[in-house]
């Protein structure tokens, strides 16, 4: 029985539980709703929940544990060195699963019978070709061990499937019977149902923590593996980045960090004045009508996907900067450059800076402005000398947030900054960033046991720590600022 079918059966049983639960409760109260502890619908829900919750928990656990158990039993098909090494075992098991799936598909399409699949041998012609014929592409020819393991895997999977169905259904039925038996007009169905709802709500709220734990675990775990293969001193202090798939790579963070910082710096140079002045104009000068049109128009920028900005950098701005500035002045001949990426990220961040600045400027009390106007300051003097200094902490916080966004930006730098890891001062040179290298090391053909791939996790870790730190500081400053005027 497939998982999908199983879910359908559980749903049907739950419906049964709902109907019977409701009726039983009504019957025990002789149809008099006033006599019952809870409304009839709660007895129904109680019946349904008693079916669903235990059955689904059992099913979920089974689905998690089943592959682990089966894989353990298949280990004797492989030589000891494969079974020992985490990475090799993962790869071998992936092959086994893929071949097993291929056989399933072949049977489903009628290209093989069940028995043919079971007695299939590698010496009877290429298994890879036969599977390719049914649309299952395999990376390499199937070895006898993998094929045998795959066949064994299928046997286990069939048995496991039967066991899974029986157990889940038993639990569902048990829940159903329990739910029905306990139902009576005096049973506090509503309280029980509400308890379950509360538990589910509380469980959902932990998703944020689980996500963070997932992020930290994946970053830390793989980074540690990276540092067992590559010395951490070299990662943090080496000044060169030149991955090399024969081994002996130089994987120094410095050039990537420099590119990241340089580009983010350029982006702030662009976003800060433009965003700030837009905010000032909108908050202090614009009429309500102008404001109601211009503010959303600027916010449109924030709604455009970054890949669009990336294409703009690649196709329009990059070549423009190269042809108009870099080449005439002899500063460079590459369309991808720190300038290209920095300017485009800056543009992307304008609405962000502007709306944060707008918030903090509006938080400065009107009394402060009146005080300034009252002794004959002009509007710009009031803004420059009173409003901005008062809003400064908030603005600084906003800039830090913008900086953090620039550091974490991926698509624009991937498309507009270049791939060359350099420690250079010329902003018209192509340089690269942490995020660009995360993408390039993790896309395409990757093996998860080489330092060249795993370095991406160490880079991700660096990025995470960097942006998180900036955010925490920025949010702290902004919060302190807000409190000051509350």
């Amino acid at each position, binding site marked *: 029985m497939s998982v999908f079918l199983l879910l359908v059966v559980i749903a049907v049983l739950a419906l049964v539980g709902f109907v019977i639960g409701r009726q039983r409760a009504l019957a025990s109260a002789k149809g008099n709703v006033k006599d019952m502890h809870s409304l009839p619908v709660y007895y129904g829900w109680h019946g349904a929940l008693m079916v669903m919750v235990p059955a689904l928990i059992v099913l979920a656990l089974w689905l998690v544990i089943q592959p682990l158990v089966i894989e353990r039993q298949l280990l004797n098909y492989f030589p000891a060195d494969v079974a020992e090494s985490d990475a090799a075992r993962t790869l071998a098991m992936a092959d086994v699963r893929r071949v097993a799936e291929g056989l399933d598909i072949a049977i489903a399409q009628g290209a093989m019978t069940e028995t043919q699949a079971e007695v299939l041998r590698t010496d009877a012609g290429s298994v890879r070709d036969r599977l390719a014929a049914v649309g299952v592409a395999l990376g390499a020819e199937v070895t006898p061990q993998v094929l045998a393991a795959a066949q064994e895997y299928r046997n286990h999977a069939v048995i496991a499937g039967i066991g899974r169905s029986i157990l889940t259904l038993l639990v569902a039925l048990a829940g159903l019977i329990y739910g029905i038996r306990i139902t009576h007009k005096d049973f506090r169905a509503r309280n029980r149902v509400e308890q379950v709802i509360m538990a589910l709500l509380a469980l959902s709220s932990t998703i944020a923590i689980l996500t963070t734990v997932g992020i930290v675990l994946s970053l830390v775990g793989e980074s540690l593996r990276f540092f067992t293969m590559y010395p951490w001193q070299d990662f943090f202090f080496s000044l060169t980045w030149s991955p090399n798939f024969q081994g002996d790579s130089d994987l120094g963070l410095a050039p990537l960090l420099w590119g990241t910082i340089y580009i983010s710096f350029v982006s702030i140079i662009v976003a800060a004045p433009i965003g700030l002045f837009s905010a000032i104009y909108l908050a202090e000068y614009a009429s309500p009508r102008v404001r109601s049109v211009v503010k959303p128009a600027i916010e449109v920028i924030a709604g455009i996907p970054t890949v669009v900005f990336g294409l703009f950098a690649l196709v329009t701005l990059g070549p423009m900067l190269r042809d108009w500035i870099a080449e005439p002045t002899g500063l460079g001949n590459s369309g991808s450059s720190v300038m290209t990426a920095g300017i485009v990220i800056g543009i992307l961040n304008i609405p962000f800076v502007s709306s944060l600045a707008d918030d903090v400027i509006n938080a400065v009390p009107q009394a*402060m402005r009146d005080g300034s*106007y009252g002794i004959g300051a002009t509007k710009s003097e009031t803004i420059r000398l009173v409003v901005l200094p008062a809003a400064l902490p908030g603005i600084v916080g906003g800039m830090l947030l913008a900086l953090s966004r620039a550091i974490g930006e991926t698509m624009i730098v991937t498309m507009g900054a270049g791939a060359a890891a350099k420690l250079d001062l010329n902003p018209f040179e192509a340089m690269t960033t942490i995020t660009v290298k995360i993408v390039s090391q993790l896309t395409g053909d990757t093996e998860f046991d080489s330092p060249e791939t795993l370095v991406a996790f160490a880079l991700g870790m660096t990025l995470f720590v960097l942006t998180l730190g900036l955010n925490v500081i920025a949010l702290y400053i902004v919060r302190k600022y807000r409190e000051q005027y509350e």
Partner: protein
Amino acid sequence: MKDLRVERDVQTETNKIEARGVQVFYGTNHAIKDVDVNILDKTVTAFIGPSGCGKSTFLRCLNRMNDTVASARVEGKILLENEDIYDPRVDPVQLRAKVGMVFQKPNPFPKSIYDNVAYGPRIHGLTRSKAELDEIVEKSLRRAALWNEVKDRLAAGGTGLSGGQQQRLCIARAIATSPEVLLMDEPCSALDPIATAQVEELIDELRTDYSVVIVTHSMQQAARVSQRTAFFHLGNLVEYGETGQIFTNPKDPRTESYISGRIG
């Protein structure tokens, strides 16, 4: 508290400000209705009246602070030394240097005490050197009766002072630009009685140099500090005259009822 009015008489009878037929509208709300008034030089003039009657609105007309309120519209003429301040050629910024303002709630800038006072002279380019600026700051603080309390911590933030000190700082800030008129909108309503007494004493002293207009909701305060009183009611200037006369012998029945506490 001694009665200050007895000690100082009105020194001049020259008009500083003459308002003629002033009307103010907030959108369609007619807030000030055809007000005529002459405000004397070197005199404290008090505006009294029930809340919402337009005292602040009229006060804010005198230095065109209403220009900062988008919905406000002012009609009529207000002459400051015979020049119409609503003349299109007048720059309200330049006007406000001559007609300074102090607000209900003390609103020092989040800067040092020194910079708070130096703010006006700096923007109006009143000084050429640091020494001159120091001198103005000191004089203004002395004039605002704050010097002795803050002279040792001029670099400390203005917002760190007590409420009464903050209000005197705001007064010092306003007089540092050497205005001719000082407008004060309920300058004591956010202060405790002791601070109020200090500020009231200060207001009386300021009269030697400035024409002071003060809005107050406290009749006692008006009686204590002012020589002229104007009573506003529902946007009308009901009665205007010598403070003693207004309080002891009001001509208009509405003034009479207000003074005796029947309109509130």
